[in-house]
């Protein structure tokens, strides 16, 4: 199987490996249509945070959209037949690309859990996120944050929406110098400003950071968040992947939709996050009554670029044959090689730039090694 995966592109092999991983953990594959009514996405445009929606009129005049997001669609459409629904998907979304400012098809895989989400499920989803990252690259970091920390502190400051947005932008960028001046301009007290700056800078292993956070927690929500992070640390302690987890409170997301644990995953060769997820009870509750949810998406686009598998040869064997000759034995010979695990290409001439470990000429019903190319 490993040899087979080695012949695939990074994106294709990840698709396969991650699907197997999610299946092993009892998640069911969820397939969906490529289109959905535009109004559904426009009603939840904030959740898409300016990703752009590709819309068109279908044959009966209804305005439709090519899916810009998977989570929204799953939360709205998945059949919740039991207390807990565990799903995984392999889908494409269509969004505006930041680099080309044009629409782009982006391949995504991920998991969603809908129902009653408890501490165990949070730990399970985090563990799956870590395993997904490890499948991409053993050098990975999963940055974990909690939506109750900084947002709950911001709610106490009595500042306007614009100032709040500016502060969140500074926190996302670990920009404590501008954060201090925005706080000063908006009359935030010096001790709260310093607390915000400290929280924005926090980035470290769970066991090192949790005692610091426990000291800094100054309201009930922050204390509860600290307990939740402690539970995760305890649950993950025995896992070899635990050393790859960091608490980083600069990871923040839309407070209207997300609550609780949120996280982003990085691998060494990719310049930006390749995995993003978290608990989104607020969004789930908006679309389905009494439903909590947690999940994550792995962004497979561009991974082929950063993890380009350079293969020495296009195939192990190239067989050159002349169609004028009888080729009745040829198929059996090719099948024989394939059954032994070799990759084989049968051709009339050597394709331009083709590299094969061994080249055979098929003559008179037999193979004769000629030269390598």
């Amino acid at each position: 199987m490993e040899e087979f995966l080695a012949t695939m592109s990074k994106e294709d092999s990840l698709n396969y490996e991650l699907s197997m991983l999610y299946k092993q953990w009892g998640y069911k594959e969820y397939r969906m249509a490529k289109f959905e009514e535009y109004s559904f996405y426009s009603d939840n445009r904030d959740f898409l945070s300016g990703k752009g929606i590709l819309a068109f009129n279908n044959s009966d005049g209804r305005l439709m959209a090519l899916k810009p997001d998977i989570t929204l669609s799953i939360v709205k459409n998945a059949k919740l037949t039991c207390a807990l629904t565990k799903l995984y998907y392999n889908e494409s979304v269509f969004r505006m690309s930041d680099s080309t400012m044009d629409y782009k098809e982006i391949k995504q895989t991920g998991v969603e859990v809908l129902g009653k989400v408890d501490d165990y499920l949070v730990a399970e989803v985090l563990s799956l996120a870590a395993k997904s990252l490890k499948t991409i690259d053993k050098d990975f970091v999963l940055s974990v944050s909690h939506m109750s920390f900084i947002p709950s502190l911001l709610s106490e400051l009595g500042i306007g929406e614009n100032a709040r947005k500016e502060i969140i932008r500074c926190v996302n960028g670990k920009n404590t110098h501008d954060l201090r001046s925005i706080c000063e301009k908006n009359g935030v007290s010096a001790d709260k400003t310093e607390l915000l700056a400290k929280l924005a800078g926090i980035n470290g292993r769970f066991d090192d950071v949790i005692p610091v956070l426990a000291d800094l927690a100054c309201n009930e929500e922050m204390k509860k968040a600290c307990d939740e992070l402690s539970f995760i640390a305890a649950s993950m302690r025995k896992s070899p992947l635990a050393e790859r987890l960091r608490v980083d409170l600069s990871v923040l997301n839309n407070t209207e939709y997300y609550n609780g644990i949120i996280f982003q995953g990085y691998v060494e060769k990719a310049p930006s996050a390749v995995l993003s997820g978290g608990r989104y009870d607020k969004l789930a509750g908006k679309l389905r009554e009494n439903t909590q949810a947690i999940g994550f998406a792995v962004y497979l686009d561009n991974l082929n670029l950063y993890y380009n598998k350079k293969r020495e040869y296009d195939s192990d064997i190239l067989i050159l044959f002349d169609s004028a000759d009888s080729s009745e034995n040829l198929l059996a010979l090719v099948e024989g090689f394939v059954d032994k695990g070799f990759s084989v290409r049968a051709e009339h001439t050597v394709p331009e730039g083709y590299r094969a470990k061994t080249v055979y000429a098929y003559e008179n019903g037999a193979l004769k090694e000629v030269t390598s190319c």
Partner: protein
Amino acid sequence: MLNIALPKGRLGDKVYELFASIGYDCSEIYSDNRKLVFENEENGVRYLLVKPSDVAVYIAHGAADIGVVGKDILEEGDFDIYELLDLGLGKCNMCVAAPNDYVEDFDRPLRVATKFVNIAKNYYISLNREIEIIKLNGSIEIAPLLGLTDVIVDIVESGKTLKENNLRVYEKIMPISARLIANKSSYKFKGADIDRLMQKLQEELAK
């Protein structure tokens, strides 16, 4: 090895001197040649000299781990990076400037010449003022003199160019200075090295 993107020019020279003073020197950088990449394996640094407006692009795409860039560039673009430190170098202001005798007419949209389209747009959105932007790439000061626009939005350092063209600062938008930025993924994997450099920079700047 830390890959550091520096802006070519006066600001880059100042920043390099600052980095060299805290132990990240690379004497090859002074050699008179057209090379754009300089490495000092011993100090664990590789400097890339790039166009100032491209520094943040190199960082955002992970071609360099950290870099130094003006706040004007960061505000004009939308880069998913960490902005770790205000170096306090290259201080100036982003301003609205107008002819000395300019009186604003609120009956019509304001015509603005600038190369900082997003900064101008965001500033006037915050004032709820309707504007028309004319994007220029240089000699912005000429626009109001020729009646092309009412005002300009540009960086003002000493104000000398404005004065020589009979213009004055009409409104200050924001202070600008050089910022130390980092690629988010690099910070996850080289965080200890970046924090060490940042600590040394903070100590040096505090002197």
